[in-house]
């Protein structure tokens, strides 16, 4: 992994001076996110999410497999998130760096462990056939905060995806093609979204750090929350120590921010649905 050269020390001095005045290098205020943009692919379940210059493409696909014997009613959700050198030269194809492991584990926890997708709804024929969803993430460019971008790309792709309608007669399974029957959306309990905050020596936290801000920061905290005011995952690994009050403050900010992001996602999905004809004659 080619170690990225640290920025000159004047960058950190300037960044801290700017933050002390509540300003950031790209004109944002501390708790403001970069512009969020969604680009929908032609296939259902293929969405690219962009926060500022950071871009992640999420692709959902489904296949029918035999379930595990001790869990006959449950389908599967596999998440494949390898960060390649496409995102930035510090990531290598083979060995996964620490930051990549952190991102992969956090995505795993926030989507799979919190049961965002109802896996029992994926059951077709108990013990015989269940749906296996495969969510593949391609990290296109990293200009800071890959995690939030990836988590939003995943959730919107899962919401955008439709699986073919399936009919079971006795133990015979008929899969209807999109022309015959309208494909069916997934059963999604809640929408967990990641929010990453960066901390600097005794300065208020900033939301959605850029690449420069995350290299120079003294610690980050990621909280995954959903619109029902629930914390799904919280991960503060090291960095400057925070008081309980600091963490609670950040969590409260997270609640409104997540509602905001869910609204943006639904609007984008709505706009895409109008422009796409799914209904069948």
């Amino acid at each position, binding site marked *: 992994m080619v170690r990225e050269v640290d920025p000159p020390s004047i960058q950190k001095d300037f960044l801290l001076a700017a933050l002390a005045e509540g300003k950031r290098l790209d004109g944002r205020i501390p708790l403001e996110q970069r512009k969020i943009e969604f680009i929908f692919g032609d296939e259902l379940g293929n969405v690219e999410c962009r926060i500022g210059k950071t871009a992640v493409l999420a692709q959902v696909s489904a296949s029918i497999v035999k379930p595990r014997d001790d869990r006959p009613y449950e389908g599967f959700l596999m998440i494949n998130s390898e960060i390649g050198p496409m995102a930035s030269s510090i990531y290598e194809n083979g060995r996964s760096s620490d930051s990549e492991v952190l991102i992969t584990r956090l995505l795993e926890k926030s989507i799979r462990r919190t049961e965002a997708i109802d896996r029992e709804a994926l059951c077709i024929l108990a013990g015989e056939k269940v749906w296996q969803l495969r969510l593949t993430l391609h990290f296109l460019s990293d200009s800071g905060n890959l995690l939030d971008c990836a988590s939003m790309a995943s959730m919107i792709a899962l919401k955008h995806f439709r699986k073919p309608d399936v009919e079971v007669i006795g133990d015979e399974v008929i899969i209807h093609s999109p022309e015959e029957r309208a494909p069916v959306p997934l059963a999604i309990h809640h929408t967990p979204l990641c929010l990453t905050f960066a901390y600097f020596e005794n300065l208020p936290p900033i939301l959605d750090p850029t690449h420069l801000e995350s290299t120079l920061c003294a610690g980050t905290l990621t909280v995954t929350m959903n619109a029902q005011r629930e914390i799904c995952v*919280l991960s503060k*690994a090291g960095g400057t*120590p925070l008081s309980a009050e600091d963490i609670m403050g950040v969590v409260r900010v997270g609640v409104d921010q997540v509602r905001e992001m869910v609204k943006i996602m639904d609007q984008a999905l709505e706009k895409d649905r109008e422009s796409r004809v799914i209904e069948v004659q």
Partner: protein
Amino acid sequence: MSSSRIEILNDGGLRHDARRPYELRSTSFQLNTHPTAEGSSTVTQGLTTVQVSIFGPREPRQRSQASHDKAIINVEVGVVPWAQGGGGIKRVRGDKRLQEIGASIRQTFEPVIMTHLYPRSEITINVQVLSADGGILPTSINATTLALISSGISILDYITSISIGLYLKQPLLDLSFLEEQDLPNLIISCLTNSNKITLAQMETRLHIDRFEEMLNLGLEACKVLKIEMELIVKEQTEKIVERMNVKSIISSNASGMNIDE
């Protein structure tokens, strides 16, 4: 989720291992348990035993990694195959989880170890889980703190760590493996003097209002752990210091005295 196979809290208010909600598992802290490491410790909390040995600060293996103004910290986490008891669920899925625990430990201790005192050198922390019954990360962090103290490396303060669960509205402290599987589980570690949190990890869904209560309870528990650890450290240090001054006893009464057994 399938109905919990065991009773988390029976009506008498006791947990499945007969502890009260706020009661910690029995702990045993031992220093200098590794013969050749600069610093080492073995910590047992309940049935979870972790041994940490620290080598360094020493010459880094690859000089390309060395940083010119501070020490670099490498953490390796290993679990012995029989840690989780024969058979049963394979507790640790592959090395991704271990790598994550290793990264958490490294990031937790990076701001606390005064690395600027040891430029261009490397501190290697080996964490070996000997038996796992829940709370691997908290026990590893407590063991690493003691190992650092025993190695004489300068640190700002003790870091103690604890896991906190929630059963309906009742928070539980220091979860065992079974409780960890079924309950929402928050792990925190904090600097006891300044009451600041250096690590906070939570995996399952939890409402915000409960979160604050668990956070403060965890801080309280960390203080108790620290007091306990400090007792042990001071006890052991007294023995060592006493031995260090034994020579003065010889020179003061060089005459052949007989000391009865």
